[in-house]
């Protein structure tokens, strides 16, 4: 029985007819876009930029290429001994930036498109680089579901990449000369994409830290230690994705890879929580006030400071309020005020002591966070208070 996509392509090429009944819905949408924008279904090879344009582009996108590289290596290993797999990185306009994989597939005469190839749907039709960008999410294009004939040998799975502000900055795709999609590759691709986004966030944080260190606003030594803690989460995530990919490539039990990917997600969650807080701490901009859950904010700050506390021999306890307390505050200023209070409390605990933080409702629509520092040696505890206006009715939008 003929593959429906093969029949769909035959009908389109012969009479220009699009057949939604023969294509999966996301593929049909991609074909429609390709048709409307004038892509040629008979094309056999990708269009490639001039060499000097490609070079200029690669130079401009060097941070993205660098952030993606470790994960692309991992992805290309996930296919194991199947040498026809390659990982491809594209920019936000679907121009290929990098290809990592077996030589035959990455650079052979029948290999995947090379750096500088234009894979936007308007040029190359539905494919694993252009279509995820057009759809704004994960897309798989299997063999003859590719709009252009030249890509029919490949099965591609792609997902967009976003920067810390949510803007699409590129796309990552795994391509192989197989007639079907590989589910396990989808899971690792999604995780790898997130890992790349974490790398981009780390670069942004490092720039922020350098700027703050230069102003002298926060203690440089402490900032360095906190930076190391962030890198720890990111390093764990990268290793977990790499090892999950290797385990799939070696056909180890899927449960092991699944566990590693779950660990990677957790590491990345931790990194992104702390990373968001970091950016609040080092930002000099005044943000708009919004509703913030105090307990949740304290918990993330404690997480950020946990290694610093441990190396100082200090225990942090966050005492949960009896009822949730939300405050209306500038998130950046609030984070900085609470962070400074933690640091004062650490100093007062004098190594080996206990720091408690507790949010509570005060009088007159005020909330306060009470920091108590109990030194391990004898001596009275020190108390620090941070007062804030309580939010009475606005819905909770962030922690």
């Amino acid at each position, binding site marked *: 029985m003929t593959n429906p996509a093969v029949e769909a392509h035959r009908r389109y090429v012969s009479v220009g007819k699009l057949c939604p009944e023969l294509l999966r819905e996301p593929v049909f949408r991609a074909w429609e876009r390709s048709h409307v924008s004038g892509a040629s279904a008979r094309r056999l090879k990708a269009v490639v930029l001039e060499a000097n344009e490609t070079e200029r582009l690669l130079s401009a996108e060097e941070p993205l290429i660098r952030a993606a590289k470790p994960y692309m290596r991992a992805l290309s290993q996930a296919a194991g001994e199947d040498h026809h797999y390659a990982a491809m990185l594209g920019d936000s306009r679907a121009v290929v930036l990098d290809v990592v994989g077996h030589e035959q597939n990455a650079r052979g005469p029948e290999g995947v498109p090379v750096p500088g190839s234009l894979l936007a749907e308007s040029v190359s039709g539905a494919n694993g680089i252009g279509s995820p960008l057009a759809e704004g999410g994960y897309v798989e294009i299997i063999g003859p579901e590719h709009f252009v004939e030249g890509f029919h040998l490949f099965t591609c799975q792609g997902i967009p990449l976003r920067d810390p502000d949510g803007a699409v900055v590129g796309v990552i795709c795994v391509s192989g000369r197989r007639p079907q999609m590989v589910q396990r590759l989808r899971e690792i691709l999604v995780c790898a994409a997130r890992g790349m986004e974490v790398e981009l966030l780390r670069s942004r944080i490092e720039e922020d830290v350098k700027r703050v260190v230069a102003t002298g606003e926060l203690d440089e030594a402490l900032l360095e*230690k906190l930076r190391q*803690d962030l890198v720890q989460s990111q390093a764990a995530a990268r290793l977990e994705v790499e090892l999950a990919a290797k385990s799939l490539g070696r056909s180890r039990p899927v449960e092991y890879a699944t566990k590693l990917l779950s660990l990677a997600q957790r590491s990345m969650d931790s990194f992104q929580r702390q990373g968001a807080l970091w950016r609040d701490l080092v930002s000099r901009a005044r943000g708009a006030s919004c509703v913030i859950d105090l307990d949740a904010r304290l918990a993330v700050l404690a997480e950020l400071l946990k290694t610093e506390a441990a190396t100082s021999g200090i225990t942090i306890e966050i005492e949960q309020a009896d009822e949730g307390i939300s405050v209306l505050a500038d998130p950046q200023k609030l984070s900085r005020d609470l962070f400074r209070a933690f640091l004062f409390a650490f100093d007062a605990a004098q190594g080996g002591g206990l720091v408690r933080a507790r949010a509570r409702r005060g009088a007159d629509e005020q909330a306060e966070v009470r920091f108590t520092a109990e030194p391990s040696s004898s001596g009275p505890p020190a108390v620090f208070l941070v007062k804030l206006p309580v939010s009475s009715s606005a819905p909770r939008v962030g922690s």
Partner: protein
Amino acid sequence: MMCKLLIVDDEADFRFLLSAEFADLGWDIDEAVDGLQALEKLARERFDAVILDYRMPRLSGAEVCQKLREAGNDVPVVLVTAATGVEQIAVSAGATTFLGKPFSFDELCRIVSNVARPCQPAPS
């Protein structure tokens, strides 16, 4: 006799990852949750290499290295760290080499194999 590797890190997930992968490569693995436990184990048994995290509670990786060398233990040590500019500290503390985070497992594996005492990992 199998090659014996000690993995020292206060992060359980990190120890789990490295232990599983190196065991798969034929190493006999032991773990320590901090510097003090590492020193106890290194005093009791012979290891062919140590992977040691730099930043740990109670005793840092550099301090562990120093104490090892003061006790006359010349076990090869790979110090892993997220800190920048730590090469000088690692060398003066007596680490055999160091590796910056984030790193790939392949890099770590290559470095450990290069510095370990001559031994033969069991076939995996």
